[in-house]
């Protein structure tokens, strides 16, 4: 393993993380809800979901964040690694997987670990491990 010092951005990563943690803290302390994006998205698809209005408003906030960001500067650069087939397959897997697993990086990784939930710690280890293996296979075994 070599560290990619050129792309390592410790300060913005840490500051971004603090903001994410502060937002999740506000949502649980004020609204009593977990800021797990996959769960909130599922309530978008379920008309009868409990507290649907509040959940959709949180998502609206996330959705509009880039507009607020653009008042101060250009949006961060985005480079995509996969073509349309990869994006469709990845999207389907993320959609199905996060529903079966009851959460994603935000719900399990941030909120779940912060409340020391064993289920979330296991889920986070699983999706990280699967992510490491997938990138290894795609980049180093198949990609060459």
């Amino acid at each position: 393993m070599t560290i990619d010092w050129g792309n390592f951005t410790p300060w913005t990563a840490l500051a971004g993380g603090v903001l994410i943690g502060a937002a999740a803290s506000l949502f649980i302390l004020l609204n009593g809800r977990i800021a797990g994006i996959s769960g909130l998205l599922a309530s978008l698809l379920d008309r009868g979901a409990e507290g649907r209005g509040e959940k959709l408003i949180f998502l609206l906030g996330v959705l509009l964040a880039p507009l607020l960001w653009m008042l101060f500067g250009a949006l961060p650069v985005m480079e995509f690694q996969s073509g349309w087939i990869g994006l469709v397959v990845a999207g389907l897997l993320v959609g199905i997987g996060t529903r079966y697993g009851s959460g994603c990086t935000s719900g399990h990784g941030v909120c779940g670990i912060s409340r020391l939930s064993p289920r979330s710690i296991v889920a986070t280890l699983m999706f990280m491990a699967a992510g490491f293996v997938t990138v290894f296979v795609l980049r180093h075994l198949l990609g060459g």
Partner: protein
Amino acid sequence: MRKLASFIAGLLFGLGLLLSGMANPAKVIGFLDLAGAWDPSLVLVMAGAIGTALVPFTWARKRDRSLLDAPMQLPSKRELDGRLIGGSLLFGVGWGIAGICPGPAVAVLLSGHWQVVLFVIAMLGGMLLFSALERRRVC
């Protein structure tokens, strides 16, 4: 009041994702690529987020109602079952293919990249597929 709180929390969450660098799929893959040139930034995002949220969540666990008097809705499931593990593994494979997870996907949906729009449509399709499969299981 709760709706305003939701909106502000969502905005902050989105700004945090953008600032953290995790909105860029190449950066996420750089973290997942242990065998290549490894970018540890995501470790610091998680450390920053968990370090900030640990005390508020510990406090939240001791309460029945939120500060705005909403019921505290913390998950009560405890068991480590196949659905949790299998689902998380599937999610991880999808995350590794595209470098996109649900949060950043929403935060950059309006950035004008067709790739994110396609990913989000497929992700919502996957969620609908799950609901359809669940309904058949119950019937």
